[in-house]
């Protein structure tokens, strides 16, 4: 079937307003937040109900047309960059929170619900949805599930996969598949929920998600520990974990990031500090006080030069504002920002930070490093200009080195951004040839025509 004929069918199924064919409209879905070449789809559709979504999947399969589902397009590994000439399916109009159940502690949502709006709605009901990816103000829950998104609270609360109790999704024939559901325990059938989480749209199209909710912590305490030695800061991270304390958040900022943030937000950060740790403990007030005191003591014994404990909500907010400003501040330094998320077992944080310094020096690049030190997920951020071909070459080589180091330390290519297009070629380094072939056989069985987000994760 030609794209032209398919467009007509889409229009009939979804209404003309929900089918975008104009070049300029299609071009606006050729990219996401990854630094990769754009690929322009042949048509963009926006189903307004779940039935329409199912129809679209079947129509694409019948026509053998590749389809890429897109929420807000904030993917950092190219997971939402479509196949040239293919179909982009927008979930923006499937944005209803179907249920927030305060008795059974779960919620049901459509895939296009915005993460932060959902978290706020849950909070208004006195509950808590912890996953907080950096793009939560715009990201969709469908995207979070498809990518298994993380965030600042991963250390104590886990990541998106720890909150998905069940999913409904369409297979390539447009059949509705149901997995998991409202109960804490559920062993009915294969664990298809687990299969779908993090599958980056390659195995099915999500139509409904069941999410676990938890009671919010009663108290929280934040502090900032200032170090004049990176090694001391990273040793402190390991020491806190080794002392069997699990802070809700344990973040790291290097000197370059500190200076960039200070220049950007004038938050009063110590620009001469070599590293900062931003730490929050939460839970029962008694435990919070105890843990906070222990963490403070550990920071001190491991060489923190100064520790500022937030005395009230305003001070606490100030601590986290500085962290939230990190990427913004770095992004202003240069035109192109390459944000990596190679992750290591947390005890290897000191080695990873040391290696990053070496890589920056070897390739003469500026790398600002910040991130979720507590769960081993750092964000080395390379500041460059993609228009400078020679420098860009060095950036690519540096990224290769970062992956090699992370893997040699027992880590992983991606903690939370996904493999997508950007890292598919590295997959074998971390796994095995057999792993890739197994994944491809799985995909081939479930998606014989290869229409579901082709090229992502396992290549083609």
């Amino acid at each position, binding site marked *: 079937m030609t794209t032209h004929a398919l467009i007509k069918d889409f229009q009939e199924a979804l209404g003309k307003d929900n089918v975008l064919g104009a070049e300029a409209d299609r*071009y*606006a879905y050729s990219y*996401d937040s990854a630094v990769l070449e*754009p690929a322009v789809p042949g048509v963009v559709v926006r189903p307004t109900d779940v039935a329409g979504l199912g129809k679209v999947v079947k129509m694409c399969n019948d026509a053998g047309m590749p389809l890429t589902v897109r929420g807000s397009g*904030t993917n950092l590994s190219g997971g939402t960059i479509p196949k040239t000439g293919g179909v982009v399916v927008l979930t923006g*109009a499937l944005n209803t929170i179907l249920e927030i159940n305060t008795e059974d502690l779960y919620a049901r949502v459509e895939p296009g619900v915005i993460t932060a709006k959902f978290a706020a709605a849950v909070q208004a009901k006195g509950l808590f949805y912890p996953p907080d990816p950096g*793009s939560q103000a715009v990201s969709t829950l469908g995207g979070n599930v498809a990518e298994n998104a993380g965030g600042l609270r991963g250390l104590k609360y886990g990541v998106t996969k720890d909150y998905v109790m069940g999913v409904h999704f369409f297979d390539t024939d447009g059949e509705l598949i149901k997995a998991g559901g409202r109960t804490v325990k559920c062993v009915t059938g294969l664990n298809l929920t687990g299969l779908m989480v993090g599958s980056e749209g390659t195995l099915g199209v999500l139509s409904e998600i069941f999410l676990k909710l938890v009671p919010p912590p009663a108290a929280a305490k934040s502090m900032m520990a200032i170090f004049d030695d990176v090694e001391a800061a990273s040793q402190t991270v390991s020491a806190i974990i080794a002392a069997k304390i699990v802070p809700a958040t344990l973040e790291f900022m290097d000197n370059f990031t500190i200076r960039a943030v200070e220049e950007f937000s004038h938050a009063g950060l110590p620009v001469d500090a070599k590293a900062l740790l931003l730490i929050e403990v939460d839970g029962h007030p008694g435990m919070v006080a105890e843990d906070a005191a222990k963490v403070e003591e550990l920071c001190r014994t491991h060489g923190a030069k100064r520790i500022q404990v937030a005395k009230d909500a305003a001070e606490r907010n100030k601590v986290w504002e500085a962290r939230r400003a990190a990427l913004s501040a770095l992004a202003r330094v240069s*035109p*192109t920002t390459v944000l990596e998320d190679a992750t290591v077992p947390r005890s290897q944080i000191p080695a990873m930070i040391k290696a990053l310094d070496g890589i920056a020096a070897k390739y003469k690049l500026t790398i600002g490093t910040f991130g979720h030190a507590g769960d081993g997920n750092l964000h080395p951020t390379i500041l460059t200009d993609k228009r400078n071909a020679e420098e860009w070459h060095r950036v690519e080589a540096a990224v290769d080195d970062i992956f090699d180091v992370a893997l040699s330390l027992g880590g992983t290519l991606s903690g939370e951004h996904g493999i997508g297009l950007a890292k598919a070629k590295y997959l074998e380094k971390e796994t095995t040839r057999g792993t890739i072939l197994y994944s491809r056989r799985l995909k081939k069985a479930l998606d014989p025509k290869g229409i579901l987000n082709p090229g992502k994760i396992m290549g083609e």
Partner: protein
Amino acid sequence: MGDVKELLRLLGEIDDSLVSCMRCGMCQAVCPVYAETGLEAHVARGKIALLEGLSHEALKDPQAVMDRLDMCLLCGSCAAGCPSGVKVLDIFLKAKAFLAGYLGLPPAQKAILRGLLAHRKVFDSVLAVASKFQGLVTKPANEVIGSSCAVFSGVLGGRHFMPLAKTAFHKTAAAKGLAAAPGQPTVAFFYGCMVDRMYPRIGQAVMKVLTHHGAGAFVPDAQVCCGIPALSAGDLQTFEKLVKENIAVFADQPFDVLITPCATCTSTIKKIWPEMCDGLPGATRAAVKELAAKTMDISEFLVKKLGVTASATPSQEARTRVTVHDPCHLKKSLGVFAEPRAVIAANPGMEIVEMAAPDACCGCGGSFTLKHYDIAGRIGKRKRDDVVAAKASVVAAGCPACLLQISDMLSKSGDAVAVMHPVEIYAQALDDGRPGAGGKTP
């Protein structure tokens, strides 16, 4: 149709600005137009991508890009919240000028911008005639707001608009120079087209407050439009003509501060004039920068230069509930939001009650509301709902364009909420001779 090579060259000039967008997409969270349409081509990230596509010849249809650039209120929400600090408004205004230069302005727009806006005298006479006849085609719609409803709704799309003033502000007795009392500053009063034609009462309130404080005033009636309607249509030629005429009127005059009661005029003169004056002669550019540095919003001026503060002795009787809308061009562009509240609270009879999202755009966006009334109306409806939920009897905003849009929205829903400029509320306290009006009285 112009030379496409020239268009590409011009777009290449803003490549550094375009490339600073890292495609994070955070603008989706704050763009009022995107909130309604949900289309990537309508949000800043999408528009910047389209401009890059055009610049790199991946896109072939400049008109389609122009149409999507037009889906913008120029509210600056995206720029205010942009992690990478992309100069979004500069990019859009420049790109529109390049594209309009290549595509040509649509005939109707050209007639209005170059025929009317660029020629103050013609504009005045057309509006003077229009104001006399508008009663024939409109009927009063809402007494509290003072709006009218077009009988021929086909023409105006069912708008409830403010009638044109019978007498423009610049023709009223209030629009005259004032000598400064000793020690008081002298202002140049740039009242702006909308105050002149639709809200002379705001101009009169400004004069009353200036008189009360003994401030001097220079009120030239040769001043012309700030140029933003022309620039937002991509008409750089008319914009530059208007800037030059204004510079001729204001430069080298003995005043300390140029004030305007219009957030959009303030933001245009202060931020957009210096950014968009590259095509003007060097001396004019220098004068533009000097004038921009001296330009202030009226409320900011009253607080910072005349010491107006919240009344220390608010009325003990039931006060009037006022809710405050923050115009985008005041808060997001200039960071001014505390001052209008102080000016309102200087009236001891007023109690400020905040609405849910005071700085959410009202949806006017100057000519956006003319071109995309439906979307502007949907955005405005949210604002109207927030205003009504605040249970205030007055909504205040330091921008006549916002006042117009909010009046339209309230009037259409039949809400009895008065719409006022902060300076009017302060002037009212001076009128009433209320004791305890905030600030120093000379």
